[in-house]
């Protein structure tokens, strides 16, 4: 069953169209990636997915329901956890307070995953009372993922989790994403430009060019690494 779908979505800012007739599906329990060069519209697609931007045409389906007209906060409470590009942690709030905000995700009915988040990311545990704005890029990325995860979402959306993060931490984050998927069962859709991250973490990969989905490949096939590489590098 598809947990999440975009069907023939056209969207943009004002009059300039950015996404044209985009369709994409994420099966429940899967880890799906979306790759493409700078400025092709990946973040725009993620904003459509969480509801920060409304499509001009097409619809957004989540958990069997049409959520196109739902606002971002409603979708979050319905079970979508969103990690924005550039992380956007709340800088003048502590690590713990950032996680408490994320507890809204999934609504009031579910068990919250504070313990799990601190286990996956022990650095957060050590820094509970530190202001998020004073942490390193990698730590902020972990916090942003933890913040989206703590509410126990069905779907986790990650927009370029490796951006501006040092290589050893990129590996750590990609392993955590896989563990979260396997152990908690969270479905994941992420945007990446890092080939290694994409190859390691996802089972299926959409390729975007100039606002359209042009290919879907499986990173498990060795042949596809070159395809992915070709689509990311200029």
């Amino acid at each position, binding site marked *: 069953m598809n947990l999440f779908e975009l069907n023939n979505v056209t969207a943009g800012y004002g009059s300039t169209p950015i996404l044209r007739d985009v369709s994409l599906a994420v099966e429940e329990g899967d880890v799906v990636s979306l790759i493409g060069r700078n400025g092709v519209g990946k973040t725009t697609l993620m904003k459509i997915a969480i509801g920060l931007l409304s499509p001009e045409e097409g619809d957004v389906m989540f958990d069997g329901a049409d959520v196109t007209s739902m606002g971002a*906060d409603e979708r979050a409470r319905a079970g979508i956890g969103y990690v924005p590009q550039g992380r956007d942690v709340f800088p003048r709030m502590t690590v713990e307070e950032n996680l408490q905000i994320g507890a809204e*995700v999934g609504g009031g009915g579910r068990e919250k995953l504070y313990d799990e988040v601190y286990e996956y990311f022990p650095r957060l545990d050590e820094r509970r009372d530190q202001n998020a704005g004073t942490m390193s890029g990698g730590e902020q990325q972990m916090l942003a993922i933890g913040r989206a995860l703590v509410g126990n979402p069905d779907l986790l959306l990650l927009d370029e989790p490796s951006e501006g993060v040092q290589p050893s931490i990129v590996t750590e984050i990609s392993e955590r994403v896989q563990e979260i998927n396997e152990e908690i069962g969270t479905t994941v859709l992420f945007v990446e430009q890092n080939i290694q991250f994409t190859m390691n973490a996802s089972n299926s990969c959409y390729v975007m060019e100039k606002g359209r989905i042009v290919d879907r490949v499986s990173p498990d096939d060795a042949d596809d690494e070159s395809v992915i590489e070709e689509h990311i590098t200029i």
Partner: protein
Amino acid sequence: MALTNVLDITGLMLSSFGTLVLAAVGLAIIFGMMRIINLAHGEFIMIGAYATAFSFSAGVPLALAIPIGGLVTGIVGLVLERLIIRHLYDRLVDSMVATWGISLIFAQGMLIIAGPSFSDVPTPLGPISYGDFSMSLYRVVLAASAIGLLIALYGIYTYTTYGRHARATMQDEETARSLGVNTDRIYMITFFIGSVMAGIAGGLLSPIVSIVPTLGQSYIIEAFVTVIVAGPSVILGTILSGFSLSVVNAPVSQWAGSFAGRVALLVAAIVIIRLLPEGISGYWMEGGE
């Protein structure tokens, strides 16, 4: 003689500090958290003063009439937010024009409803005196209430779920929304709290002013100056700002009269903003974006 002078100035400082902080606190919340410049803030204070004076004249004890003033003003603010203000978020100029219009309507409306003046509220508690020195004990109450309100706000914004959500919304609205925070509701509650604070301020100030429809105008400039000098931290900033400005205002008022005191206050504000463009608390903030 010298001691009496010191005591006189201390007394003036207490009431100056209390008045500045009380006049500013509601404005500081609404501007600091929502970036709405509420030009009707003075009239919110006026409504609080009237509701307090009205309740008092109907036999309600002052200690209860003041929170009633806060609540009435809060409800007025809530209705305005739902009807008008919420359509003007992120539209600075439009919101200023709208709130300016509201301020005129409120001042004129009160004139029509209640006439040019309303029976004054007598200052409670009497004087404290020492030799030649004598001041109203109520000044101490004003300063203490101002600090008490700020402490209450600190509690709300630090320890409650609403408070956390409000701070998150202020720091990054879009991200807060995408994490399930109903930011529309947060803005509504914040405007309500700011209005309640303005109303309580009006109630607390009602025994020391004449209850007239234009009374808001005597506080609006000081309120704005205090908020600007305070800078980004609503609570710490407002305390420091109220303190610094009253330290300048009180002795000058004592020696050269209250008009000179006001001029000194404005000059002090300009100097502080020249030296610390982010306001006093901008200097203290850490962990920027």
